[in-house]
């Protein structure tokens, strides 16, 4: 740092110390924030500057806390950043009154410092958001992959939502583990809730079926809607010798047939007849 810049910087530090009351009051007015928080930040900033080499860890910590609480309270990140930038305006009034070239030069340095801190609040805000999104994605993954037992030896996986590699992995692992746990020999993968099937999704489905087959279970894919059948044929995807059915009921009937279960309608079943027809 040159002597000149050093002097400019010291001048700003002096101003911050001498006019603390005035700057702080003006800052609170501009930022429209509770004075307690801003006072803490101001004190931390000043003590960081007083110590010399600009160790801003404390200030960053306070700002992170401020950004987080404000984000949780529903403030836009721009508001928080603007509140921090308000300090420049508050200080500028003092600098202008001071009128020295050194103070003006120092103001540029100070302004850069505040810019960095303002951007920091933005970063923290987006980090917090990112974390929320990640948590939710994880929860969604856990929620959306149940394996249900349809009959002794028959399990079904109703898939809902878009299939990607991560989800297929979870579905595959869960299905295979269920096969081991229950000893089921038939599995139905129902894709009624899958909005679109492309080559990648088909690839994932095929892998799951082959893996189940390796373990000694048969897989049926059901719930193929007309548009999806059309897409699959247009894309030229080959399902080979994998059994596919239009509805879950058809797949269940197929599994019954393969496992030798017969469903017979009972003769003395009650038939719903309205009183006036009887």
């Amino acid at each position, binding site marked *: 740092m040159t002597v000149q810049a050093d002097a400019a910087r010291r001048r700003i530090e002096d101003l911050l110390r001498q006019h603390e009351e005035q700057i702080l009051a003006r800052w609170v007015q501009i930022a429209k924030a509770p004075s307690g928080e801003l006072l803490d930040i101001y004190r931390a900033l000043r003590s960081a500057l007083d110590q010399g080499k600009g160790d801003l860890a404390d200030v960053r910590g306070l700002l992170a806390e401020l950004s987080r609480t404000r984000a949780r309270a529903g403030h836009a990140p721009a508001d928080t950043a603007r509140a921090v930038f308000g300090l420049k305006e508050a200080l500028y009034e003092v600098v202008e009154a001071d009128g020295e070239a050194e103070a003006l030069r120092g103001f540029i340095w100070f302004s850069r410092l505040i810019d960095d801190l303002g951007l920091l609040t933005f970063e923290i805000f987006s980090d917090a958001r990112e974390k929320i999104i990640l948590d939710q994605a994880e929860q969604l993954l856990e929620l959306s992959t149940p394996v249900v037992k349809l009959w002794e030896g028959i399990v079904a996986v109703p898939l809902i939502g878009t299939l990607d590699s991560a989800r297929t992995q979870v579905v*595959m*692992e869960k299905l*295979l*583990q269920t*096969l*081991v746990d229950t*000893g089921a*020999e038939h599995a139905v993968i129902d894709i009624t809730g899958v909005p679109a099937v492309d080559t990648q999704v088909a690839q994932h489905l095929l*892998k799951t079926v*082959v*893996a*189940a*087959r*390796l*373990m*000694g*279970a048969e897989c049926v894919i059901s719930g193929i809607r007309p548009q999806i059948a059309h897409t699959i044929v247009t894309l030229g995807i080959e399902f080979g010798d994998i059994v596919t059915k239009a509805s879950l009921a058809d797949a269940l009937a197929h599994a019954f047939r393969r496992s030798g279960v017969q469903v017979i309608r009972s003769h003395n079943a009650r038939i719903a007849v309205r009183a006036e027809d009887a």
Partner: protein
Amino acid sequence: MQRVPVLKLGDILIVSIQIDLEDQSVLALQEDLADRVVATGARGVIIDITAVEIVDSFIGRMLATIATMCRMLDAQTVVVGMRPAVAITLVELGLSLGGVRTALNLEKGVALLDHVRGADR
């Protein structure tokens, strides 16, 4: 080198793999098994890999080779007890073990062999 024992149960040979397979033991197993199938006139071979936790392409190919070999000697091969992780690994390796029959456990493997032979008769 550890050898994998081949057990005879009626006209079925049972191979239960309980050790970490080395390439040498795999080759020895293939020879032993072919010899035993010929010697006993077995009609079915069950390979139990319940205890196998790690597979590579070599072991995947071994299963396919044994199955082909046994079919030439007129014996059906069933691989039983494959773990989910193993199945996923084999699929990712691109090995679908085309000609190999599979079953969830030994009991179901025996039932499958009975069923297949019943159909042949």
